[in-house]
């Protein structure tokens, strides 16, 4: 399990580089998925879907629609990862 935030971030960027057919060091967090990496809306959603599977988190399509940059994608996934991995703990505490 990727428990280290930096490790998860690196994995996200590595997958983006794979999909965009770029070298790892060519991907910047400020890169826009559409304009700079040539992905269309489906491509960027497919990317997020792949990443959600990799990180084993559930994402709603609506929530992912606003992602514009590599940095947005990293932050969005991290936020969801933390929320969903924290959920069982919170639920068990409630019981």
């Amino acid at each position, binding site marked *: 399990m990727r428990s280290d935030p930096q490790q998860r971030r690196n994995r996200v960027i590595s997958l983006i580089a794979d999909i965009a057919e770029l070298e790892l060091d*060519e991907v910047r967090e400020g890169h826009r998925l559409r304009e*700079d990496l*040539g992905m*269309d809306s*489906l491509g960027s959603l497919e990317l*997020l*879907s792949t990443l959600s599977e990799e990180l084993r988190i559930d994402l709603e399509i609506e929530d992912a629609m606003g992602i514009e940059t590599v940095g947005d994608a990293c932050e969005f996934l991290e936020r969801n990862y933390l929320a969903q991995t924290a959920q069982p703990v919170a639920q068990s505490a409630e019981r």
Partner: protein
Amino acid sequence: MQSADPATHDVLPIVLEQTRRLGRTLDAAAIDRQARLPGDLLPRLAELGLFGLTIPAPEGGLGLSLGEACQVVAELAEVDRSVATTVGLHCGLGTRGLVELGDEALRRRWLARLASGEVVAAFGATEPGAGSDLTAVATTAHVEGDALRLEGEKAYVTNGGFAGMFTVLARTPELGGNRAWSLVAVPRDRPGVHVGAEEHKLGIRGSSTTTVRFDGVRVPRSHVLGEPGAGMVHAHRLLEWGRTLMAAGCLGTARAALRATLAHARMRRQFGRPLADFQVVEGHLARMASTAWAMEALVAHVGRLEGEGRPIAVPSAAAKVFCSEGAFDLCDRAVQLHGALGFVEDTGMALLLRDCRVTRIFEGANDVLCVRIGTALATGAPDTERLVHGPGSVDPEPHREWMTANARLDALVDEARRRRGIALVRDQRWLAWLGQAHLALHAASASLATAGPGADAIARGTHACKTFVRRAHEALDRLTHAPDDTARDAALMEILR
């Protein structure tokens, strides 16, 4: 279809009449046999102004809207699909980039010549390694001072054999980075442009299809069309026009097949009566007529949306898929109803079938476009509205049936989104199913919207609407109750056939 400019209302009927007259002089079978257009045809097309259909009037063209140009292309396709493809490609993908995105100098230098037909236009996006996935385009245009240097090869370039101007999609790493593409206008007479031999094809054999290689071709940087680095976005915009004009060509093919088949079914007698009197034949003919009606309604709808300045990405893809599948089905039924006569070349049915086959493939394979349409539905894209408004039938019954089927599909989309989350966007099978169900209901609504005026038109449009609503219901029934994916595949394939 409404004109963008009231003045073109006067021009369109004249162009249509002249196109019909030209059509009467064309021999589609000879064009197919010789696998090229007659030597005097391009000048004749030019003389009628057909190369300037969509080029603005101040720049020497007729300034017709997309919807109006579709009527002319459909008229040409009724007679010969190779000629329609040549003109349609020039008016859409070939020149649209220069019209919408070219700078003043480029427009001044080229548009009048393109409008007069002195120069014919072509579009190069596809490559040996880049078909439906345009992000695999490898042709590259490097910046060298004030110029761009192009290297690479384009494949299946329509009009390639005689085009004088190519709109080329190329990677431009110095204009936006390693994942940036730009559209570049490349004149044929530049050193390093090499046009390959004509491809031997199954259909549209009279149209020109070649490879075009660029070996260090230099053009000024001002030949970049639109925003440097935004070529992929621009290319998709041009494809919207290309797909709509292709759908119009399919409509022409469908009309030709329907007309010939009706005549044959009334004339040919078997078992002592005309074929048209047999119930099973009537079923085929009704289906063909409904499909042709829906095709016309969808093409007109995209023309109207474009005229109103509304987005047409999904509607143009829907029209392309529906019309190319519809035309192929219609031509197949035409061959069937002609019996053995349909299988030999003499009746022209075999040619119609061969000519329209490629339209299910080029400018976006239908399978890919269905997935795209399904994705647009799943992501709630703004141009996925299925309801088409129009002055058509006021009969509430078919509309009520349509509303019920529409609500079912909406519920299915909502459920898929809820259950699958973002994983849905990678499930191509589901997306294709949703896309095809959308197509059937969109076609049904368009049919109803154009049903009228006049009792005959209302009856035809209403019948077409009911046909596709019924098929959508049947497909949705099987889609929701199917035991496995194979059964679901079978259900959805039947929507369009």
